[in-house]
């Protein structure tokens, strides 16, 4: 099904039959690569991703923020381009983290020409969007100077994408916040994702299976397939190889 739904340009749509590529491209490419290592669809997916730039990196937007700095109420550095959810929109934390996970997983010889530059920019963008005190939200750490609330999902994805810099102060701060937040999480997708991330950083949380089972008992995950998939990955012993990029410790972006 995944292979059949890839679009001719290399992107994947959000659902089979849809016409436009989007954020699903990085996760679909990663799944195809990890499942059977077929390189051609992955190469096409990577090419699409590395040639897709977010809207704020366009000349018009950069000129606008240069001439009208007050318009930039979120105070973000728009030269740090990550990835958008859909073409023509701005960079956000989660789609950037998904793309970095893919770039960090596939062998170097599959990567397109601009991949190294995009990876550096994406990593720098994530650190630029970190909330004061650690952790991430969807991508607005400050609006009108007020700090945004940190959220479990974006924090876990960003930490997974930045695992090559595990010892950086920002990673450690964010991990501390995630560990504290873990016990208050009320939704299964966030519990699974936080469990997965903390384990990837060598801080596995006891009782994850029982907690997910009790949440499933409560609402059947409301039929949420991504939540069920994340839960299964979080409980699988195979997860360790999913984020095993230990050979790729890197210098700071």
């Amino acid at each position, binding site marked *: 099904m995944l292979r059949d739904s890839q679009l001719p340009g290399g992107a994947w749509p959000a659902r089979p039959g849809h016409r436009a590529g989007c954020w699903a491209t990085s996760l679909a490419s990663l799944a195809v690569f990890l499942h059977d290592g077929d390189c051609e669809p992955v190469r096409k997916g990577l090419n699409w991703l590395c040639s897709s730039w977010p809207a704020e990196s366009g000349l018009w937007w950069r000129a606008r923020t240069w001439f009208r700095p007050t318009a930039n109420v979120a105070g973000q550095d728009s030269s740090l381009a990550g990835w958008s959810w*859909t073409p023509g929109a701005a960079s*956000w934390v989660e789609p950037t983290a998904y793309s970095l996970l893919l770039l960090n997983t596939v062998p170097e010889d599959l990567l397109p020409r601009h991949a190294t530059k995009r990876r550096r920019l994406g990593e720098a963008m994530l650190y630029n969007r970190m909330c004061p005190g650690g952790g991430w939200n*969807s991508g607005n750490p400050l609006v009108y100077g007020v700090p945004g609330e940190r959220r479990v999902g974006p924090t876990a994805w960003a930490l997974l994408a930045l695992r090559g810099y595990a010892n950086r102060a920002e990673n450690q701060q964010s991990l501390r916040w995630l560990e504290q937040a873990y016990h208050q999480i*009320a939704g299964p997708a966030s519990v699974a994702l936080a469990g997965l991330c903390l384990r990837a950083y060598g801080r596995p949380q006891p009782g994850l299976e029982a907690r997910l089972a009790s949440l499933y008992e409560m609402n059947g995950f409301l039929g949420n397939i991504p939540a069920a998939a994340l839960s299964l990955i979080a409980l699988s012993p195979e997860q360790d190889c999913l984020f095993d990029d230990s050979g790729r410790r890197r210098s700071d972006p």
Partner: protein
Amino acid sequence: MSYAASQIIPSFQRPPSRVAIRRAASYSDPLAAVIQETVTGLGFEVRDKTILLKPNFVEPDPQGIVNTNPAVVGAAREAFLRLGARSVVVGEGPGHERDTEGIIETIRLRDYIGTLAANFVDLNLDDVTLTPLRTSASRLRELYFPRSVLAADIVVSMPKLKTHHWVGATLSLKNMFGIVPGSCYGWPKNVLHWAGISQSVLDINSTVRPDFAIVDGIVGMEGNGPIQGSAKFCGVLVMGSDPVAVDATCARIMGLAPERIDYLAKAATVLGHVAENRVLQAGETIDSVRTDFQVLQPFERLKTVHAEAQPRPT
């Protein structure tokens, strides 16, 4: 009916709209009875209809100042069922937080509507249909919409009375951003921002115009809304079948001029009434419940009285 019956009608061809303002001192008031009486009084027919309630659930919010209070959602559900609705489900697609279940469990929605699996649909993950938009205010020509919304006989928009740091105020029309599925457009649904928020509000509501609006104005939010503002007690529920007129009334209650809110000015041309002389108020008067909301500096221009009413310095 919502999707099938949404029509672009110039406002001058629409009859005047009725909007009811009801006082409610707290969330433990008998809200279901208040809503039932108001819906009946406004002559809004729900018998044998399938109803989708669309609240504004944004973030896990233990303090209860960001989201539509679940007590109001539960009360609306109870009222519509008592009035003979065939089914009433609650549907929402939060714009920032992917873990919808985490939000609705944090606010204990289950205590008010019963089993979530049967009575709640996550609009971010629902099946979708590509739908042409009925106006072209934005560059978007079509959007995917959830089938649960398109199939409902009646859609009820249930926002919280809040200021908004991009558009001034978020009410029943802006609340409809939540029907746009995150699985297609992301968290946030940023494509709508790049296409123009006001323009997108018009295009979405021209295509799926809410049949009824119930605004939770018991405790609203002022300042840096819709998430980071401060709680503001206002003590009202505002209801009606013209969502534009309901929003205009809410703006006036907040001390804002609705015709200066860009998306309401646009909506006034084809979706409903903003002009005060085309809105028939029922229940309380605007002046008797008026509670001036603080807004961020860029939106001071929306305020109705402060500039005009204050004596000029001599």
